[in-house]
């Protein structure tokens, strides 16, 4: 064979072989296209738009005291919001971020594995010197960076400025970052779960349905047992057995419990581990 000065032998075929290239491709899919700013504008309109509308609505109208039938819980909420006007925006934000952003993440991530399996690009990519682990991890990292960048950093910055402009309150930055971090952890739970389901199933129904059911089941079913609330991420952004952990963090209060936080991190690692294990056994 004639000496080859064009092609370079690739010795990078370890368990993460090809990861930098695949991650670059995933990042390009976010940041090199309109994806990132479409996501940004969409969530800006939905989340910050709703928060803007809420700030323009009198508190009494929101909690029904004009009709004279405010219940004690609503009265308490009303007093809390009058004392801390930043909560008028933060509490709905936590609920919205805990719901609509999760919907967005699940819908985006559901095609991460399935679209590539169905279209054959997964098989094609894996015929190159890249490892299956690198394939899966590049999805997790690529989508994760996009979520952190757009839903965490950009939307968070807008929210911070919005609350300051509408209330004059400057939330302590560290507390605010802590709240956003918990929100991102919540999103990561559903992101890793959806990617895992994409490796387990070929049908979009299961990949979409299971995360959505998990997301909404505590809303649908009243009286969730406290042990279940402790091992799921619901209490990160919403009030269940304990007040929302994110609410405690942003108010600079000690966390009522760290179990949901720790368990959610463990779930993310477990989902990723199972996805890696399963995808290594996928036959194309």
């Amino acid at each position: 064979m004639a000496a080859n000065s064009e092609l370079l032998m690739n010795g990078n075929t370890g368990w993460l072989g090809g990861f930098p290239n695949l991650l670059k491709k995933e990042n390009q899919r976010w940041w090199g296209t309109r994806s990132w700013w479409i996501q940004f504008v969409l969530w800006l309109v939905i989340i910050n738009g709703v928060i803007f509308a809420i700030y323009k609505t009198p508190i009494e109208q929101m909690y029904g005291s004009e009709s004279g039938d405010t219940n004690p819980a609503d009265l308490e909420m009303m007093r809390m919001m009058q004392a801390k006007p930043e909560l008028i925006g933060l509490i709905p934000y936590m609920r919205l971020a805990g719901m609509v952003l999760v919907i967005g993440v699940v819908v985006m991530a559901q095609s991460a594995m399935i679209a590539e399996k169905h279209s054959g690009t997964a098989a094609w990519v894996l015929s190159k010197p890249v490892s299956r682990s690198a394939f899966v991890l590049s999805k997790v990292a690529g989508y994760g960076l996009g979520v952190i960048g757009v839903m965490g950093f950009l939307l968070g910055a807008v929210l911070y400025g919005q609350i300051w402009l509408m209330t004059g309150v400057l939330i302590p930055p560290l507390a605010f970052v802590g709240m956003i971090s918990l929100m991102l952890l919540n999103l990561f739970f559903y992101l890793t779960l959806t990617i895992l389901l994409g490796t387990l199933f070929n049908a979009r129904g299961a990949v979409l349905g299971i995360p959505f059911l998990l997301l909404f089941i505590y809303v649908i079913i009243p009286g969730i047992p406290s042990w279940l609330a402790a091992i799921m991420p619901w209490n990160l952004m919403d009030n269940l057995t304990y007040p929302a952990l994110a609410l405690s963090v942003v108010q600079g209060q000690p966390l009522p419990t760290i179990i949901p936080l720790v368990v959610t991190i463990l779930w993310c690692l477990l989902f990723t581990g199972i996805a890696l294990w399963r995808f290594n056994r996928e036959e194309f």
Partner: protein
Amino acid sequence: MASNNEFVLTRDVDWLGGFGNLAAKENRRWWRTRRWLVQSLVWLVIVNGLVAFVLWVSPIAAEQQGAADALPVGQEFALMALTVFLSTLGIAPAIGVVIIGQDAMINEKNNGTAAWVLSKPASRVAFVLSKLSGNALGILFSMILVQGIAAYLQIWLATGTTYPLLKFAGGLGLVYLSLFFYLTLTIMLGALSNSRGLAVGLPLFILFGYQFLALLGPWIVQIMPWNLTTPLGTSPTSLAMALVLGQPLPTILPLLTTALWCLLFTAIALWRFNREEF
């Protein structure tokens, strides 16, 4: 050309041309596969499982905690179970409806089968309507009828209470109308766009975002389907509940507007799909 005894010339190319065949295909997708069984079982477990929890498990738990006196009994208990059933039936299967609906159009557009089918003597109107009719029938059976019958029996077994069958069916009909709203919305979005995000995200946002959207004003509750299955605004009960109990409907606006929305979504889907270029 030699005489042809095999092929039959079809003149059936009017605005509903091919609907029979396409509807049969959609029905086969439900009834000749496991889909009807899987969907029935999933929603039976989730919806009726919750009803069973309320009827049989929570009294035991309350007794163990010494709070048995706080639980309602007899007809009131049946009413509580009925409330849980109707509100859960209006929400949980809607997730399934949205997922099924987004697949209906977008899948076929993306993998080319829509273009292939439309190269045959089938009209675009028939294509969209067959999607609607096939899925509507499957949803009616696997998400409403099965669960409704099961819930009726559950409540009767646990409390001895029965409701007039016609009124109970009427209540289920309102729940079905609510699900049909999400089906037509999702199919419309699938016809308007190739984005699964839009086809899934917007209906789910409407389904669960009522707690935020209702803040925009009481008028929005009147024009959306939420009040069909969930008590909202000034209504002490949902419309479905009121129908089952034989009470006068607190308002009929949500019923009328939901039906109008369904017609509008269907019309927009037909209009848009007639302009789709493959």
